[in-house]
């Protein structure tokens, strides 16, 4: 309060209104203590941090959207990949491009081996040395991660008398998927037809991969 008084005295002639708002007269009971004090209306902070803008500690956790996705040098657009896991394991498919999430976009083509336009992780593929020239193939713009995201199917609500009547919603292929499949496959089949070894390529993409005895993957060239 002693410090406050000279402050008030100095500020008084400059801005009378301000000082009156900042300080408040408080009466003190008892004798021989001045009777009243000028006290700040709003108290000063008890804690002042040493940094005005505290720096955030570096965290090694990065969000998935900021991840960097690498691609094996053996996988280039048009490479025939062997799928090693999943629903289509053993099938030989054509690699189209890498999506933003890092997953690979592939297609069977659907007529040859039943594999549709699909995303797969490159760790479940073996890249072969066989490459098709896909430079002229135009993929529809809408083929991105959002397009391939899993759709939430409505679960049947169990009402009193209808537990077994309500049907489960089954996944059906949307029309836009069929459209895109046809559009992309047409171009890829054209590429294969132009190839010298087209008959063998058709057979190759339609066949499944398997290991025989005395075939060791680490010794094989794919």
């Amino acid at each position, binding site marked *: 309060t002693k410090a406050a008084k000279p402050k008030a005295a100095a500020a008084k002639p400059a801005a009378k209104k301000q000082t009156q708002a900042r300080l408040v007269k408080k009466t003190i009971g008892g004798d021989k203590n001045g009777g009243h004090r000028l006290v700040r209306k709003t108290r000063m902070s008890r804690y002042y941090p040493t940094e005005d803008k505290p720096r955030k500690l570096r965290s090694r956790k990065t969000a998935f959207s900021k991840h960097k996705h690498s691609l094996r040098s053996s996988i280039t657009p048009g490479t*025939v990949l*062997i799928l090693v896991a999943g629903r289509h394991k053993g099938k*030989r498919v054509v690699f189209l491009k890498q999506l933003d999430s890092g997953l690979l976009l592939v297609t069977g083509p659907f007529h040859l081996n039943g594999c549709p336009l699909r995303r797969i992780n490159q760790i479940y593929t*073996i890249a*072969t*040395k*066989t490459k098709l020239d896909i430079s002229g193939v135009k993929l529809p713009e809408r083929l991105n991660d959002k397009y391939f995201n899993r759709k939430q199917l409505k679960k049947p609500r169990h009402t009193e008398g209808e537990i077994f009547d309500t049907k489960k919603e089954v996944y059906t292929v949307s029309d836009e998927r069929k459209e895109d499949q046809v559009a992309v496959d047409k171009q890829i089949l054209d590429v294969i037809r132009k190839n010298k*070894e087209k008959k*063998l*390529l058709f*057979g*190759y993409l339609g*066949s499944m*991969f398997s290991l025989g005895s005395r075939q060791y993957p680490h*010794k*094989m*060239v*794919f």
Partner: protein
Amino acid sequence: MVLSQFRFVEVGRVAYISYGPDAGKLAVIVDVIDQNRALVDGPCSGVSRKQMNFKALELTSIVMKIPRGLRPGNLRKAWEKQEVQKKWDSTTWAQKIANKKKRAQLTDFDRFKLMKAKQARNRLINVEFGKLRKTVKRPAPRLRKKKSVKK
């Protein structure tokens, strides 16, 4: 025991090195050191003149006509003049090695093509075999007497 059926260790015998850092290369036996070792040199095949245990050498059927201890320079000339590489490449041994190497380098598509080619060949063979089978008169199959069932 006919001596001509053996391949002898002799000066000028071309050997195939089976293991070690020079595995797969050809070298000539230039001199014999003792019971186990030979002085070996392969100027045209990248084998420097060195001693080698006979265990690492597999004798080929090729023998060069060279004097004992022939120096590398002259050995190279003799090798080229006597066409050792050409003789080696024409042997089935060398061809087998080359085929093995080729097979190891086959890609997945190549293996598929090979499988299809084998199938096509076998179909042709089987068709011909079937035709041959029909032309041969087969003796009537001997019927084995059925064992009479005891009542």
